């Protein structure tokens, strides 16, 4: 009997859909089930692109889909449409079951979706997640009664620790189609009846997290706290980034890699073309990882030695803020400010992500509801938010002047963000709706889930960025060797020199900036520029055009026409701001 059911399952059920409200730990459960890392976040909307993984099931594998979080099957946003489409497809193919993930601390609201799912012709099993938290705050749920009322298996789980996940996997075969009978117009009434029967809430005092929640969202206490949080975040990123560079990356490159490179240098001979490509120039017979510009010297040092430590530090801090649940609160506090640039508070999330890399920043603009908002947000971050790779290089270059060198760059970019955003707010047609978001409870981020997420993001950076950097360095060397950059410099240089006060070589650097901004900033180092010239060059490099990776996603997200508009705004404002700086500084 059991074998028949197993083989029947094997033939029919090839897919598991994880469905549930946002912030219920669905993505963590997905990671547990599949072992494939996935970005799991605490704010609504990060998994608009759904993830697919596989899971071993006896002697065969099934596909597991992490469906975007939804509150209802009556879609109200693009993300919810994706979720409903996935569900409808699965029902049509008759090859899937649903694991409906519920937040046990919030049974009533979660059951609203469950009841909608039980009306569909598809087997369902329920994971009652955050079970430990529910017990902790005094919510008692009678699992047997809930199972009896709903007519499908209900398994209490704690996804972050793995508690109950094995039981859930064992029970998957017993997923059943719901047979609950109720009038869909009275769904909330039915939800209320069920909740009343199965749930007892004990009276309790405010938890520390609830007090913290009140403090961080009240304007009088919340705004100072937000400043402190952001300052600490900034200093932590700087501390961890610089620490890793000084105590790990630099010693590794100087003591281990430099001797190997010197050996290759001697074998190749300092004058050969191959030497120029691979090792680059020697300074006093030594390799300078920042300036030599060979593929294996500067080409490896920039992404791995100078940028990677900052990328790691940034994503560690950002992921912590995300998983703790702070970002939606920050969004509420900053909402009014974001209205200046025609957006609402939740736009702070893509803006933050863009500080790491513009590509995930542009993708995250999907949390915004309208085309107008997405255009403004994507254009604005491409103009005025340098990615962490570029920021790290700017710090490396201007850091020696201290605040006098660094502040003009970042203050200028902030004002560009504000002013360009405000202009777009008036010029770009369309609607910008108000903020509307769930404020999830504070949670202490689960350490290994957090690390997994940081690793995913760092890994993504290495995979996407490293090839571009190496190609960038190669192209620079070839263009230099064949005199192309000198030619272009003479052609357009006088204009750049007149407007921006930069030397002829800057043209080549702007060209390379299209490949990688960090490499372009690195190319400024050997030019012997003054502080003023460095500041102007850093600002213009940030603004004038997105790097090729960002350009491609912008093109996909905005379409050609909108992209052209955005590009015009970028080039125009870059030269305008650069010229103004040249006059003022």
């Amino acid at each position, binding site marked *: 009997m059991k074998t028949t059911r197993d083989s029947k399952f094997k033939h029919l059920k090839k897919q598991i859909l994880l469905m549930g409200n946002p912030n219920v730990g669905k993505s963590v459960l997905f990671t547990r089930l599949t072992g494939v890392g996935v970005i799991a976040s605490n704010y609504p909307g990060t998994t608009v692109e759904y993830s697919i993984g596989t899971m071993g099931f006896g002697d065969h594998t099934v596909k597991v889909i992490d469906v975007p979080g939804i*509150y*209802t099957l*009556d879609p*109200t946003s693009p993300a919810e449409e994706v979720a409903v489409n996935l569900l409808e497809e699965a029902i049509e193919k008759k090859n899937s079951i649903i694991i409906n993930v519920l937040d046990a*601390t*919030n049974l*009533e*609201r979660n059951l*609203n979706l469950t009841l909608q799912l039980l009306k569909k012709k598809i087997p369902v099993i329920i994971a009652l997640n955050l079970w430990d938290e529910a017990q902790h705050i005094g919510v008692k749920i009678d699992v047997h009664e809930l199972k009896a009322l709903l007519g499908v298996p209900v398994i209490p789980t704690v996804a972050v620790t793995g508690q109950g996940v094995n039981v859930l996997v064992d029970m998957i075969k017993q997923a059943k189609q719901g047979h609950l009978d109720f009038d869909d117009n009275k769904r*909330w009434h039915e939800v209320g009846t069920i909740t009343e029967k199965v749930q007892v809430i004990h009276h309790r005092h405010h938890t520390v997290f609830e007090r913290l*929640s*009140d403090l961080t*969202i*009240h*304007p009088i206490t*919340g705004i100072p706290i937000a400043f402190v949080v952001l300052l600490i975040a900034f200093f932590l990123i700087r501390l961890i980034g610089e620490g890793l560079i000084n105590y790990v990356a630099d010693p590794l490159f100087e003591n281990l890699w430099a001797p190997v490179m010197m050996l290759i240098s001697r074998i190749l001979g300092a004058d050969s073309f191959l030497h120029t490509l691979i090792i680059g120039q020697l300074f006093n017979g030594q390799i300078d990882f920042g300036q030599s510009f060979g593929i294996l010297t500067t080409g490896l040092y920039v992404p791995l030695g100078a940028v990677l430590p900052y990328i790691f530090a940034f994503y560690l801090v950002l992921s912590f803020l995300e998983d703790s649940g702070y970002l*939606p609160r920050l*969004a*509420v*506090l900053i*909402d*009014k400010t974001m209205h200046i640039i025609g957006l*609402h*508070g939740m736009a702070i999330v893509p803006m933050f992500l863009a500080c790491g890399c513009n590509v995930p920043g542009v993708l995250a603009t999907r949390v915004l509801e309208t085309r107008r908002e997405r255009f403004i947000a994507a254009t604005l971050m491409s103009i005025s938010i340098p990615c962490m790779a570029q920021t790290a290089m700017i710090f490396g270059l201007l850091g020696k002047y201290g605040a006098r060198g660094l502040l003009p760059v970042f203050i200028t970019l902030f004002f560009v963000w504000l002013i360009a955003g405000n202009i777009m707010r008036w010029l770009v047609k369309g609607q910008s*709706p*108000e*903020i*509307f*978001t*769930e*404020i*999830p*409870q504070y949670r202490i981020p689960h350490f290994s889930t957090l690390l997994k997420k940081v690793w995913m993001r760092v890994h993504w950076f290495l995979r996407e960025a490293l090839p571009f950097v190496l190609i960038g360095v190669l192209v620079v060397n070839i263009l230099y060797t064949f005199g192309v950059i000198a030619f272009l410099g003479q052609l357009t240089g006088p204009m750049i020199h007149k407007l921006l006060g930069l030397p002829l070589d800057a043209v080549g650097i702007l060209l390379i900036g299209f490949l990688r901004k960090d490499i372009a900033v690195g190319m400024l180092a050997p030019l012997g520029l003054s502080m003023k010239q460095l500041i102007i060059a850093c600002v213009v490099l940030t603004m004038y055009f997105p790097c090729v990776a960002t350009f491609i996603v912008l093109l996909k997200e905005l379409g050609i026409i909108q992209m052209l508009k955005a590009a015009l705004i970028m080039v125009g404002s870059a030269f305008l701001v650069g010229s103004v700086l040249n006059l003022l500084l």
Partner: protein
Amino acid sequence: MNTIDVTQMQVQQTGKIMLVEGGHGLVRRLEAMGVRPGVKITKLSGQLMQGPIVIKVGSTQVALGFGMARKIKVLLPAPEDNL
């Protein structure tokens, strides 16, 4: 009947939602979060200068814009009642 909208509520005040006075889209979005007529609603905070308002319904906290909050009509308990 002492009906006001959510923007007029005091922070930490609790009332009962009587009506959501908006288009179908708004009513649906709010309902999906559990914000619907008949349930208890507590205002947790309001930002300065008509900024967003945070409310609590059941154990769900929701931040919404001032304009949306104005469309949610709430009945406050009479002083002698215990809600």
